[in-house]
């Protein structure tokens, strides 16, 4: 019965370093976020318009690559060591992947930030999606590759721990937190194949001048092959916190361990074969493939909807154990004065709203309405920007004392901080959603046009902009409070009565879960098959159309023939033609 730092002092150092890297990225990212909100709403413009895109690239990469993933590796390491009750196998290996991730981030960040000065040719104003033919300096791509390899090794580290544990405990169920880590990492290995191929085979050689052209649709599709599952990579650590920590902070226990396992298996299976839903409005991809991606995406809602029930039920269990009564009265019995609980609960509430706008995004044809409008950042600031980010900040108030052994500087400021984030995000994201419906574009420095105006049914454009700016300012202040609180905590004096690092037993334990759920090989195989089903045909058809290295005179026909000789392209065309013509036929019939 002791705090994490006493159980695993060596691991605590790595985890601490990962948290600090993550917070550093958050702080910088928030500063850029503030510049963006004030610039695009025309309240304060301290940079020339062209520089907005350098800022936006930095904001995107720092937030969704550095902040989220460094945080993830920290709590995944915590989860594996705590739930297996053993340290990592070799701490030098652990430090090496941490080092690689840091080096990768530094490379990418230098390439991006160099865009601010004219003293060097280096720049990477390509946003975090780096769609070709926009090109970044090779250092940017190298940085991303190093970072991803770092995460691969981190995964290897956790698998290695599990493997060693399994030798000693052959008949035990995989503890739930470790199970969550392993399934998430399998998904990650599968997903990163897309972006790794895109960068290593195409974008990096292209930026080095080894090849002349790339196929923009191919690199874009490979990006989204990874780009959708990556959102679950951000979300899974937050889900893990909701499943295993939120019940603890509510004074209850996880409602059902088996269902939690089912949910993570579903994410492993369904996260990847859906990426084409980001390309509903792309030319060069058959309607049939888009329809298939749409149905897969809709079924991917299921694990999230199940999570909503299980997590709320666990909170309710806590509330009732604390004396809560009635249909809704129990909500009052929850520990709302605890910033860890409140932050997570508010994050979950915002996820419910973000989930809804995500359902709209998923709806193939309704995507015409919202695609690339301000609605989209409105959506993902609720999901990754709050459900994930706010959960992370909230649990940090628990974890930082655990891994430093220091006293939390201020619980009151922490409570103000999480509520302020919630309020700020309510303003910013609501106005972004509404602006998007008017047709306001995302990723635009100065969305003010000479030839037309946005037509509002209710309110005015000025009012929307004011809400976005106000929300952005509150969010930045909230981040500032967080960073200050965490910094003081890290330097605070030792806390000798930290709560012990335990995870309470679920109400319905792992032994209720069918054994097959722990069969990772089986789920991996099914996940691979589903990805092959969903992607081999679209990819073959894209290569068939545009060539591996782009359409037109610049393509290398040799590779085209290769794709043909596999007979892939032919099958691909036939299948997509079948689904498309089915839709067409139905259309004529109706």
């Amino acid at each position, binding site marked *: 019965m002791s705090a994490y730092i006493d159980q695993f002092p060596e691991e605590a150092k790595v985890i601490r370093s990962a948290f600090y890297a993550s917070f550093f990225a958050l702080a910088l990212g928030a500063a850029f976020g503030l510049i963006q909100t004030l610039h695009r709403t025309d309240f304060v413009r301290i940079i020339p318009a062209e520089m907005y895109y350098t800022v936006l690239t930095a904001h995107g990469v720092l937030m969704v690559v550095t902040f989220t993933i460094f945080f993830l590796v920290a709590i995944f390491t915590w989860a594996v060591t705590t739930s297996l009750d053993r340290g990592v196998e070799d701490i030098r290996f652990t430090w090496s992947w941490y080092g690689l991730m840091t080096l990768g981030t530094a490379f990418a960040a230098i390439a991006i930030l160099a865009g601010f000065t004219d003293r060097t040719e280096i720049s990477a104003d390509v946003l975090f999606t780096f769609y070709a033919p926009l090109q970044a300096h090779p250092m940017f791509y190298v940085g991303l590759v190093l970072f991803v390899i770092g995460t691969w090794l981190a995964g290897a580290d956790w698998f290695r721990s599990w493997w060693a544990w399994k030798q000693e405990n052959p008949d035990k169920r995989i503890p739930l937190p470790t199970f969550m880590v392993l399934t998430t990492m399998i998904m990650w290995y599968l997903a990163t194949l897309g972006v790794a191929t895109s960068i290593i085979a195409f974008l990096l050689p292209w930026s080095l001048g080894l090849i002349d052209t790339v196929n923009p*649709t191919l690199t874009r599709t490979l990006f989204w092959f990874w780009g959708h599952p990556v959102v679950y990579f951000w979300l899974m650590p937050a889900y893990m916190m909701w499943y295993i920590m939120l019940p603890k902070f509510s004074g209850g226990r996880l409602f059902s361990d088996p269902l939690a396992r089912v949910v993570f298996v579903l994410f492993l299976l369904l996260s990847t074969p859906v990426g084409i839903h980001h390309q509903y*409005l792309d030319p*060069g991809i058959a309607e049939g493939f888009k329809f298939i991606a749409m149905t897969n995406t809709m079924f991917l809602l*299921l694990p999230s909807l199940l999570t909503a029930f299980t997590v709320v039920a666990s909170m309710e269990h806590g509330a009732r154990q604390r004396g809560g009564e009635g249909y809704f009265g129990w909500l009052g019995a929850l520990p709302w004065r605890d910033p860890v609980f409140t932050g997570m609960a508010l994050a979950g509430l915002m996820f419910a709203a973000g989930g809804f706008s995500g359902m709209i995004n998923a709806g193939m044809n309704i995507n*015409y309405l919202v695609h690339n409008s301000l609605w989209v950042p409105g959506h993902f600031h609720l999901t990754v920007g709050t459900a994930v980010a706010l959960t992370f900040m909230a649990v940090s108030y628990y974890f930082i004392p655990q891994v430093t052994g220091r006293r939390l500087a201020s619980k009151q400021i922490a409570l103000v901080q999480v509520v302020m984030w919630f309020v700020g995000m309510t303003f910013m994201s609501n106005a972004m959603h509404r602006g998007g419906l008017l047709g306001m574009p995302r*990723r635009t420095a100065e969305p003010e046009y000479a030839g037309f105006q*946005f037509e509002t049914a209710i309110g005015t454009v000025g009012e929307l902009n004011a809400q976005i700016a106000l929300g952005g300012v509150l969010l930045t202040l909230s981040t500032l409070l967080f960073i200050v609180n965490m910094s003081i905590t890290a330097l605070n004096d030792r806390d000798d009565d930290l709560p012990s690092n335990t995870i309470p037993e679920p109400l319905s334990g792992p032994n209720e879960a069918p054994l097959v759920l722990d069969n990772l090989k089986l789920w991996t195989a099914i996940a691979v098959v589903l990805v092959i089903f969903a992607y081999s045909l679209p990819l073959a058809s894209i290569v068939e159309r545009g060539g591996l290295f782009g359409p037109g005179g610049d393509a290398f026909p040799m590779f085209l023939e290769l794709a043909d000789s596999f007979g892939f392209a032919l099958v691909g065309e036939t299948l997509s033609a079948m689904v498309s013509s089915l839709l067409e036929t139905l259309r004529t019939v109706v």
Partner: protein
Amino acid sequence: MNIHNYEKLWLIAAMLLIIGFIVTITYGSVGLGIAMIDDSEETIDPNALEDHERFGDLGVHQTGDGEYDVNIRAYQFNFEPGSSALGVHDPIVVPENSEVTLYVTSPDVIHSFSVVGTNANTMVVPGEISVMTVEFNEAREYGILCNEYCGSGHHGMEGVIEVVPEDEFHLFSVAGVDAPESAQAGDEVEITATVDNDALDADSAAVSLEIGEETFENELEVDAESSASTTFTVDTGALDLEDAVDIDWTVTVEDGSEATLEDGSASGSIALETDDDENDDTTDDDNDESDGGDQ
């Protein structure tokens, strides 16, 4: 596995919701015929758009009764036609109650073509052609913008679609003008304008000639997809020439589309002779169609 009854209930509700969503979308797709941007067009060499049969001929073309194709090039940082670039206001002009198919491609990076506040919205990817068919049922103006980051000038990438009443829409262009190169003050000169009608119906063109300070107007019936000529006879003696050395003239045909502004008018000048023995040699003032707009 022990699942609580309430949770089972929620599982069923969640599945129904998911199926409901899929059904709604399928209804939109099949029942209402909302098509997705797809792979129906061949790929195109982004470095050679001018050689492409469609993108070598940008602008509005009639393809059937009330049906039009518009070929649009989206490039850093304009739409052609659509944007006001290099001082030329070049909106896309189409008639009311028409079914218009927009073909958009890019010679450089990824853009979008998005009609503001509507459901007409597509990515534009170099090497691919995006096709959208939409119905314009109301005479009004729409904004167009690019909503995919395409470089440092991305925020300035905008344009306009003008939907005009049917009777104000024409596809005329001035194919050529025959005017004397020089004349003597007091002479009568003949200026012949040839007008092309690209529409699939015969239409009467209001052709006007501005010469000196005067304006003349001729009504000209032009058959579908063909050309016709009209001749203006001008008595230079009646013009208020003061002591000019040239008489400037401009022939304009009333055209729905300002997009073809350059084709819609032709101008030149007639040198005023003081010397008696110079001939009235008439040369063809060459006004070949330029391929729509500025480059």
